[in-house]
């Protein structure tokens, strides 16, 4: 291997100072952006992705409508400034199309598309910074944006990457690690423990797979906790905002009185 940086040093630290199983710092911003029905800005360390969801809405192209369920349309764009080397990727780039189709096939079974026949759900993913785990950030961001837009889903989808350096497994890889060691991205649904996606671009020894897979599934639950608390705090702030203001509160009270009276009958 050509890299001078040690992936895992003798003290058990990785190149960015993390331990083997430590996840990177994660921030989530669910505030309203423009006219999107739901959006999420998510960072995993230095990887940053912005996802905007529009819909369910009337399909722009009639040929794309499906008569018994909604069509999920995913478009990914990668900012030219997102990598170390400035590089403009066209929208037709095979790599980007692959990420888009992976996201689409991950979410199709999870979103309850059958509730919205003939509609279309547009998911626009913008990769703002890349430092490994782009697919993982895209999937987590899409989950949050979909939930934020009130689209019914069976469960969260939480994605984490895992890799193995000689014999020691590691979680949430940076770009440096991702380039050097075999890695796998797993998306799981924490409630049932079902797996929505397993994808690999490198070769991984089959004996190592089981261990990594188990670790990544556990890490998914940690990510789930983070996402859950972000969603709850966003909901709480919206509900409090709606309840504030003397007029509206008065109105609610009156309504409740009426309800109580109705119950008495």
């Amino acid at each position, binding site marked *: 291997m050509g890299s001078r940086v040690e992936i895992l040093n003798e003290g058990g630290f990785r190149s960015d100072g993390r331990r083997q199983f430590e996840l990177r710092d994660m921030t989530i911003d669910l505030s309203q952006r423009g006219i999107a029905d739901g959006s999420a800005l998510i960072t995993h360390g230095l990887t940053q992705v912005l996802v905007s969801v529009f819909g369910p809405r*009337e399909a722009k192209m009639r040929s794309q409508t499906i008569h018994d369920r909604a069509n999920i349309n995913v478009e990914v764009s990668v900012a030219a400034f997102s990598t170390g080397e400035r590089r403009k990727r066209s929208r037709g780039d095979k790599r980007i199309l692959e990420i888009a189709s992976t996201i689409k096939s991950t979410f199709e079974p999870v979103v309850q598309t059958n509730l919205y*026949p003939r509609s279309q759900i547009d998911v626009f993913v913008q990769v703002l910074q890349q430092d490994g785990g782009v697919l993982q950030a895209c999937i987590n961001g899409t989950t949050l944006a979909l939930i934020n837009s*009130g689209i019914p889903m069976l469960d969260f989808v939480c994605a984490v990457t895992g890799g193995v350096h000689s014999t020691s497994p590691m979680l949430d890889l940076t770009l440096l690690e991702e380039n050097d060691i075999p890695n796998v991205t797993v998306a799981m649904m924490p409630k049932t423990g079902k797996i929505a996606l397993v994808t690999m671009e490198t070769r991984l020894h089959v004996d190592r797979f089981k261990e990594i897979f188990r670790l990544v599934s556990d890490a998914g639950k940690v990510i789930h906790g983070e996402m859950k608390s972000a969603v709850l705090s966003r909901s709480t702030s919206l509900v409090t905002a*709606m309840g504030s*203001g003397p*007029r509206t509160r008065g109105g609610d009270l009156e309504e409740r009185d009426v309800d109580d009276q109705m119950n008495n009958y």
Partner: protein
Amino acid sequence: MDLDNEELLEEGGSRLTFPGETLTSSQAYMRGHGTYVDNEEVIASVAGTIERVNKLVTVRAIRTRYNPEVGDLVVGRITEVVQPRRWKVDANSRQDAVLMLSSVNLPGGVQRRKLESDELQMRNFFEEGDLLVAEVQAFFSDGAMSLHTRSLKYGKLRNGQLVAVPPILVRRLKSHFLTLPCGVDLILGLNGYIWVSKHVKESEQEGEEGFDAEAVYSNQNDDIDESTRTAISRVTNIIRVLSSHFIPMSDMLLLEAYEWTVDQEGNAKDLLQEDFGEALIASINTR
């Protein structure tokens, strides 16, 4: 995590939930919107507040597209004129709504047969991009709504501007046609589209007997004087500020906010500055 019955029984309480959370495993409850059943458990599928009516458990998403109900008043925009005999209307719902030629008032009396000539000149009534106010009449089998404008209150909109807010911020009111004393009419569409326009005096409204098709389907704005224009943009900006702070609309609130902004002697556009908007919200909350 199971909700015990006491928590569920708390009617009007707003407990929050998120997709994948088990609401109850008890057989006594029925699943409503925003939930699904797996393994005999009722599980939430959206993030929002849990509501219970008798045995029915529903989860209402906080931000979502408009869910139409029959009788709702909506404001929409024509997106397409489709044959045979219908318009497609964008009403912020999950599909475009349908307005049939047979559900609009035609020139020459309310009751009359639709002629072939009406069909050919549909664009004279509504064109792509036209705004209209209508009522939800019925649903098609795929869930799309059908609208009608068979009342003198409904029809094409002019003399004002549109502002879109999240649909949950427009509550059901006795009347969705408001008139503010500053010479501004408001139409609060339940789909979150709000039309702010110049006040039209009742007597000048197109009369019952002389249904004036010319005026109803006109594309020409009336003369709007400058003070009315200012008032319209002021009200629009107030609505924008309220919606960005996620505060539900009501006539009292809008009026108070309007008076406050006039007192502050700010321009209508000042409202869009963050600090001014926040001051407005603060003043509303303290009253």
